[in-house]
């Protein structure tokens, strides 16, 4: 589904790249974990495959179409859904409106369907009493579940998550990873999670470690 070819990135000095000549393939219905220490470039890699930045060299292909061809805005709108460590929900909206807004922007097939959004939230443990409450009044775990629900409501086949459990306790972490596994296996989406927690990575189908400017497959 998603393929990188000769991907490389550096900030100022080409001689000191974060990573270089990365050739990876990510498939639908699978979950991937990218491990690495802080500053190794795993989040930068995620920003490239999420269409938030352009690679310095190489290319990324979605179903054999270059992201350059697709266009980054178009790609972000229709093909990729992102979950952030800080949730990044619309803080002036309720969980329900967060989902409806995302569905409207991404032209999702269920756009405008309140019932569908409500069901997705309920499935993720956000009850009817919470769905119309302002998201700022929800706990961190609840907010992250709303963020995950947002990715589920959109039609994007690729879900990327940057340290999605970074702010969560053990129980919530387990619950969130379960949800990502469901997205990958039940919704047949490709889930790529960037994390520094080996326990989280261990729950994914595939694990890569970014070290010495290269991705090393762990399992």
């Amino acid at each position: 589904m998603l393929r990188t070819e000769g991907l490389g990135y550096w900030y100022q000095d080409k001689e000191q790249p974060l990573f270089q000549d990365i050739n990876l393939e990510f498939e639908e219905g699978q979950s991937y974990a990218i491990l690495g220490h802080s500053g190794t470039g795993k989040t930068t890699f995620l920003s490239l495959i999420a269409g938030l930045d352009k690679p310095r060299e190489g290319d990324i292909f979605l179903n054999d179409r270059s992201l350059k061809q697709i266009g980054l805005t178009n790609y972000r709108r229709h093909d990729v859904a992102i979950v952030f460590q800080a949730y990044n929900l619309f803080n002036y909206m309720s969980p329900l409106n967060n989902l409806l807004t995302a569905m409207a922007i991404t032209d999702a097939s269920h756009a405008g369907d309140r019932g569908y959004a409500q069901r997705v939230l309920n499935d993720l443990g956000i009850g009817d009493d919470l769905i119309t409450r302002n998201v700022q009044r929800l706990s961190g775990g609840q907010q992250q579940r709303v963020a995950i629900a947002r990715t589920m409501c959109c039609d994007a086949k690729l879900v990327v998550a940057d340290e999605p459990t970074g702010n969560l306790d053990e129980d919530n972490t387990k619950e969130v990873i379960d949800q990502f596994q469901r997205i990958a296996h039940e919704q047949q989406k490709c889930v790529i999670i960037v994390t520094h927690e080996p326990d989280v990575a261990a729950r994914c189908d595939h694990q890569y470690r970014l070290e010495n400017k290269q991705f090393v497959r762990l399992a």
Partner: protein
Amino acid sequence: MNFFKRAWLNVWAKKGRSVLLILVSSAILMFVLAGLLIRSAAVKATETAKTDAGATMTLSANRQAAFKKMQSSSSSSSSKSSRPKLTLTPVKLSDAKSIAKLSNIKNYNVTSSTTANAKSYDTVSTSTGMGGNSSGGPGGMKSTSSSSGDTQIDGVTSTALTTDFTDSQSKITKGRGIKASDKGTNNVVIEKELASQNNLTVGDTMTIKETTGSKSTLKVKVVGIYKASSTSSASAGPMSTDPANTIYASYTLANTIKGSKYAGTADSVTFNVTNPAKASATKKAGNKLISSKYSLSTDDSSYQSIKASMNNVEGFANKIVWLVAIAGTIILALIVILMIRERRFEIGVLLSLGEARWKIVAQFFTEMLMVIVIALAIAGVGGKFVGNQLGSQLVSQSTTTQTTSSGTSSQPGGGGQPGGSGGSGMRGGAGGPGSTTSSAKTKNPDLEIAVSAVDLAELGGFGLAITFLSIMIASGGILRLEPKKILIS
């Protein structure tokens, strides 16, 4: 059009911020509206001034031509014993009538003044210690007869058209004033002091005695009593009779007293001009109808004074509108820039979802538009109040400035008010030290501040432009924002 919904949700959810924005926008728009209202009121006031302030055109003897004639006759004359006389030709009413037919003439007032002696009554006497009732004030013309009376007879077409009455310096307190229909009658209007001193009231008759010719007596009928605001003889000059001894009558009666050769003539004729802006064109047309013995002078100083004053107000209002609009745009732009900085994560999320940048800008614009619509309503109510306060302040300042400047400029000489009575001399000489300045009769109109649909539409346009510009200035930041930099740090 999801951004409409987002805008609404944001405005509704962040009520405190929205209220603050509404207050700031209301204040800006209120001052813009005040400026707009003052400007339109000033324009309206200038238009009104054309009819209300008016302008006058006076037909009188050409003093300059008469003086030249006197000089040439004195140089050609061999006899050095006789002093040359300045002879002014009385205005022919037929000439006045032909001028009155000009399109810009509203009406006219014939003035013919003379003096008579009291017969059946006593005149009001004021002791000033400066001598008796000698003839001719400093601005008056030399009389054709050396004798003068103790009663000033001001013959007019209508008292309502004389400056004393139009400026409310004199007011009818009983009966009525002299009207055009009093032509050929012996009806008179006397001053209140004269009336009370002689127990005269409306309907009574009094007898006056001519000062020239056969010196015959004449019975006149009191049809009205007026009160002059100033009856001190000092105000009319040291040489004149007490103003309370001034009797208003039809010009025909004044002419009768002056003598038969004055029939169908006048000292001067004052024409009220319909459109003061065209006063000089009317004067030009009028000059073509008269001979060089007469001269036409225009007095549109009232109109010019009001016009200048209103132009000042209008100019200042314009400056208010633009200064407030520019300052408002800058203030709103700064607020929006701060708002955008505060909401950069939201923008990042929107960009990460693939939202178009223009739609993000449109969301901010819609939010501000909602704020502006409410602010417009508030400004619509408050703007009238601010406009009234500001407008009256401006008018009073402007009036002070205008009166000061016009009072200073018109002091030496002026437009021919009587300096005193002088037998059968003609009213309104070339203006001596006794002439009053035109600024004295200038009355600036109050600004009528009213909010019209046009004003609100114009304010809406300004509001929209301010919002649009402030969002455009601030959106430079939105367009430069990179989602990666915002979301992944």
